[in-house]
């Protein structure tokens, strides 16, 4: 199992062919109080870079892009009742959706935890 990061502040946890996707703690901190998360429907085929989800804070809506391509197989239903999970547990309980990876080579373009930390420190 390994975790990847994007420069759009998403994390991708890969186990076999399945990836779990969420936004990073840095991202939730920047967005502030999250009041709604629009997740994709199960069965959606996402291409890398597609609009995958929308995070709504009190003031603004922010797009979340698909970090990797694949078919959405599960969404985090808990976010419907408790969107604040993204604030309190962005990188664990506040995950957005799971997908079946269609192109594992895309992972090569992503950062590992150390590289992402250096990226954030440089912002």
């Amino acid at each position, binding site marked *: 199992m390994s975790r990847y990061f994007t420069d759009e502040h998403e994390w991708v946890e890969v186990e076999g062919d399945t990836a779990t996707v969420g936004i990073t703690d840095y991202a939730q901190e920047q967005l502030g109080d999250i009041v709604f998360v*629009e997740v994709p429907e199960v069965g959606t085929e996402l291409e890398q870079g597609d609009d995958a989800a929308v995070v709504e804070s009190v003031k603004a809506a922010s797009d979340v892009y698909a970090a990797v391509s694949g078919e959405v197989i599960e969404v985090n239903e808990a976010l419907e009742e408790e969107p604040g999970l993204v604030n309190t547990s962005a990188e664990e309980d506040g995950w957005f959706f799971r997908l079946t990876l269609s192109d594992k080579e895309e992972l090569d373009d992503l950062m590992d935890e150390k590289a992402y930390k250096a990226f954030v420190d440089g912002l």
Partner: protein
Amino acid sequence: MSENTDNLKQLPLGDWHRALGARMVPFAGYEMPVQYEGVMAEHIWTRTEAGLFDVSHMGQLQLIGEGAAEALEKITPGNLSALAAGKIRYTLLLAPDGGILDDLMVTNTGNHLYLVVNGATKHDDIAYMRDQLPGHLTLNHLEDAALLALQGPKAGAALANLVPDSAGLYFMEAGSFFWNDIPLGISRSGYTGEDGFEISIAAEHAVALANALTDLEEVRPIGLGARDSLRLEAGLPLYGHDMNAAILPVEANLAFALSKARREEGNFAGAEQVLAQYPDKAEKMRVGLFVDGRQPIREGAAVIDASGAAIGSVTSGGFSPTLQRPVAMAYVPTALAQSGTAITVEQRGRAIACTVADMPFVPHNYHRKPKP
């Protein structure tokens, strides 16, 4: 819209905000604090305690000279010549065709008019007023003054600690006061729906006043993010979003700003176009919306009819921290403007059910003068 961050001007309290950990963003050409601890917490603090807002980006103007009020009436629909000394009036700056160029507060200080206009429009406002007003009047832009807003149910008690006489002001009254020998222009008004004040002070003393206020247990600094969610709950329109130069006062749901005397005189800029809509002849109206579910709708989303055609648009939208549900303002056809009417809004290809709602969404809590 993203702004170029290279040429941002600094406000007198810029370093003060940064020292308190504010996140700074470009706004109206200035670098301004959008939040400190978080929009939700700051919003709720203002509704229950007292919040301090730096609104120094707004334009503070003086209009000086004989007949200033009568002259300003030519480009506003407010009964300014009847405004008593120490009183404040909300009014609109109107273009020759009646379009809204800005909304503003006008105070009769006793020897001149003091105007507060929006930050993003102040330079255009000044140019328009200089063009429209007679040459013997003087229009000063108080660029060396800061403006602090203290808002919330504990604002009155908080300010009385520093300026005891401020307790004598009622809503929409203003006066000159001193704090440690520093002159303050204090208005009991604001943009949150709460009791509170707007305090004009020389820029060089602004940090000292901000510190003295935030040293009080009940006062915390509040950013622009909560200022926006507070005014939305209070049903107060934001210039450039909920009204603009293509919108007339009645359709903006601001008919209350057309005073009876001025309607009868009908001699302000665009009076013909403005009064043609009065009181209920506008084809569209700005209304409040309750949004079903928890997903906020945002500015730019379309109001659609049963066939999916756009019939209006959302001009402000967000999540109400007080009500814990999304609310919005939108322009809808007047036939659909009645409170309780079901409306559909389309956002990112999805239809979202809404209901027209009375504004304010959260009741105003002003310190009004008791009726005799």
